[in-house]
């Protein structure tokens, strides 16, 4: 047997912006075992949600994760609306769909850039982030902030997209689509990218299902599953949504899924902007949420997210529980990493798009 070395990956590591520790056992330069250690970002948001009033929790839930903050806010509002039996106006539902998809574009472009950085393709990283600034400008124009959008309130939305904004949005989205497609061509065809990603971090169809993976990791292993396929979720049914599925089962396939989803997401926004009906922005809730339970399932950029809320009949909610996609995807690392070489470790870890602040809350 070769001598074994245990090397800590993190909590502070140049590849990851967030702290997570993986104790990796190497035999020579081959990974044989991985043990994750977590808890560096745990704040206790679920408990803090019980301390605040239910309408103030929106701001807390949005800060579970800065990259998918808008969808967290919408999901919390949706679960409280379900608890209450509130009917959300049609225009608000469409606007929620548009903002969710804008956030998906920003998150996927961010990931594609960071992924390129993980295998040392610095210029591709810079190019993806250059394009991403355009979608951030559009988020700032429509929602008022680059990162924390805070568009959703209980009963509807807080902001509207007027005709001027819609015009600029349509122009910019077309521009982003063109530029992202040009960059995706590099990501899909460049031989250096393929050399570093094809066959790295294999995860078969059965393993992905067995480990309960979510989002692009699951779809890159050939499983056709996306929470946006639910008929009653926002307005995806009317937009004719079909999930993006790849069968490569490796890091390259996971990059392809996200590259294709970026374009698909822009198309969904363009279609939704065309169909945007006139009407009210928000329904006004009365009283306090009843002491019942409600659940809500939606698709974050990283995969399926699940919200559970229990009312108490007072201004506070009795319990809020969140299940986030990275939590489901971390076990897949324990299958993908063993057998890989030392330089592929950052690439494989990045391929699941880890969001530790979502996972630990």
């Amino acid at each position, binding site marked *: 047997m070769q001598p074994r070395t245990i090397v800590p990956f993190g909590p502070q590591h140049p590849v990851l912006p967030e*702290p997570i520790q993986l104790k990796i056992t190497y035999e020579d330069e081959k990974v044989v075992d991985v043990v994750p250690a977590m808890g560096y*970002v745990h704040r206790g948001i679920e408990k803090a949600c019980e301390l605040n009033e239910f309408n103030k929790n929106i701001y807390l839930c949005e800060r579970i994760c800065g990259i998918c903050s808008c969808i967290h806010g919408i999901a919390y509002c949706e679960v409280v609306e379900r608890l209450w039996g509130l009917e959300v106006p049609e225009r608000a539902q469409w606007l929620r769909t548009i903002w969710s998809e804008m956030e998906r574009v920003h998150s996927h472009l961010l990931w594609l850039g960071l992924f390129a950085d993980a295998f040392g393709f610095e210029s591709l990283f810079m190019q993806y982030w250059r394009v991403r600034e355009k979608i951030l400008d559009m988020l700032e124009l429509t929602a008022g902030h680059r990162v924390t959008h805070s568009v959703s309130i209980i009963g509807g939305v807080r902001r509207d997209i007027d005709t001027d904004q819609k015009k600029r949005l349509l122009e910019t989205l077309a521009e982003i689509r063109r530029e992202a497609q040009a960059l995706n061509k590099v990501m899909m065809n460049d031989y250096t990218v393929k050399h570093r990603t094809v066959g790295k971090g294999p995860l078969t169809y059965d393993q992905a299902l067995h480990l309960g993976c979510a989002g692009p990791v699951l779809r890159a292993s050939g499983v056709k599953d996306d929470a946006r396929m639910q008929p009653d979720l926002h307005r995806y049914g009317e937009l004719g949504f079909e999930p993006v599925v790849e069968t490569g089962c490796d890091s390259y396939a996971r990059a392809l899924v996200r590259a294709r989803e970026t374009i698909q997401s822009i198309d969904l926004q363009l279609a939704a902007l065309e169909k945007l009906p006139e009407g009210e922005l928000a329904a006004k809730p009365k009283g306090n949420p009843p002491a019942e339970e409600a659940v809500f399932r939606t698709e974050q950029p990283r995969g399926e997210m699940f919200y559970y809320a229990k009312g108490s009949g007072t201004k506070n909610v009795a319990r809020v529980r969140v299940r986030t996609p990275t939590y489901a995807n971390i076990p897949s690392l324990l299958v993908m990493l063993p057998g890989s070489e030392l330089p592929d470790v950052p690439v494989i870890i990045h391929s699941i798009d880890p969001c530790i602040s979502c996972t630990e809350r």
Partner: protein
Amino acid sequence: MGLIEASRLKSPWILHYDTGSCNGCDIEILACLTPLYDIERFGMVNMGNPKHADVLVCTGALNKRSARVLKNLYEQIPDPKLVMVVGTCAISGGVFHNCYNVAGGADKVIPVDVYVPGCAARPEAIIDGVVKALGRLAELQEVARGKKSA
């Protein structure tokens, strides 16, 4: 001013550590380094190694488990060094101030030189903070050379 001191002021290297942030400020720090804001043209590079860094940039409410790591990183950075905290959480705990696993801001465990407010802090604010930090670094260097008293 010697060569090392001059180059330190012209190209301060940054070490970024997240002590319990929501990622919002982290992606804005990364956005500073990419083409639109591009602070790399001023010689600022995001380093992974504390031994190479001059400025420690810290984001997020101070998690009780991260506190030890943060202290460790601070001790590994060679003098003269600076600490810049980015975002409301890193200043005081922000919206997480009453969470059970949050100890408060980064200044609970290490001395902080520059505070950049915002949730999430905008790249312009972060760049402004870095410029302020450089002024402070010049002061520290003067002190180290005995030209000025602390």
